[in-house]
């Protein structure tokens, strides 16, 4: 088991979770009822894919961010 602190970027609220090996980003977001959010270790790291195991990528007690989906660009030109 690993402990993880999920910081909701917009509010700063911290949600503490305990996860088992194999826990995915999708599992965490669903459990925390954070629909339309993405998880990342910070602005310099890519977002976790929904099916990606977060357990393998974080250390025990680490803090990660949940932010709402956003994309720079205009669909026609920049997608």
């Amino acid at each position, binding site marked *: 088991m690993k402990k993880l602190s999920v910081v909701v*970027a*917009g509010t700063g609220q911290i949600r503490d979770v305990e996860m088992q090996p194999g826990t995915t980003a999708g599992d965490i977001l669903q459990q925390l009822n954070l629909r339309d959010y993405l998880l990342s270790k910070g602005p310099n790291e890519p977002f976790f894919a929904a099916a990606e195991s977060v357990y393998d990528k974080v250390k025990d007690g680490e803090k990660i961010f949940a932010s*709402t*989906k956003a994309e*720079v*660009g205009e669909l026609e*030109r*920049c997608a």
Partner: protein
Amino acid sequence: MRIKDIGTRSAPASIRGFLSRVVRGQGPAIAVQRREIPYWQERGWTRNGNVYTGSFATPYEAFFGHIEEHRGGHIDFFLSNPSHQIRGHSHWTCFQDRGNHWYLVHMSRQPRDVSSGILTIERLITDAYEV
């Protein structure tokens, strides 16, 4: 008698401190409260009404930023003096020149909060330097 009692005196403070720690243990732990603040605040942005000012900061470079949160939830993100790395990024066409070296960063998908937008733009800047 082999010894003679000639009185008592205090041990040096360092020895007394050591002995008291041995006897009492390390003492109760102090619970440190976590700060629960939005990402924009954690990153040093300031807010004046619906306008935020600060920097989009990455390990490579930081850029002055300005954010306007409108009624209805629309948020405009502005970045000052984009570097040639940003100008060479595939999303450069999404930066609209607003004069005085300020650029509006157009979002095809609007974030629901200011903090998520800052994270997105900082990620784009990092990407521009790593490509």
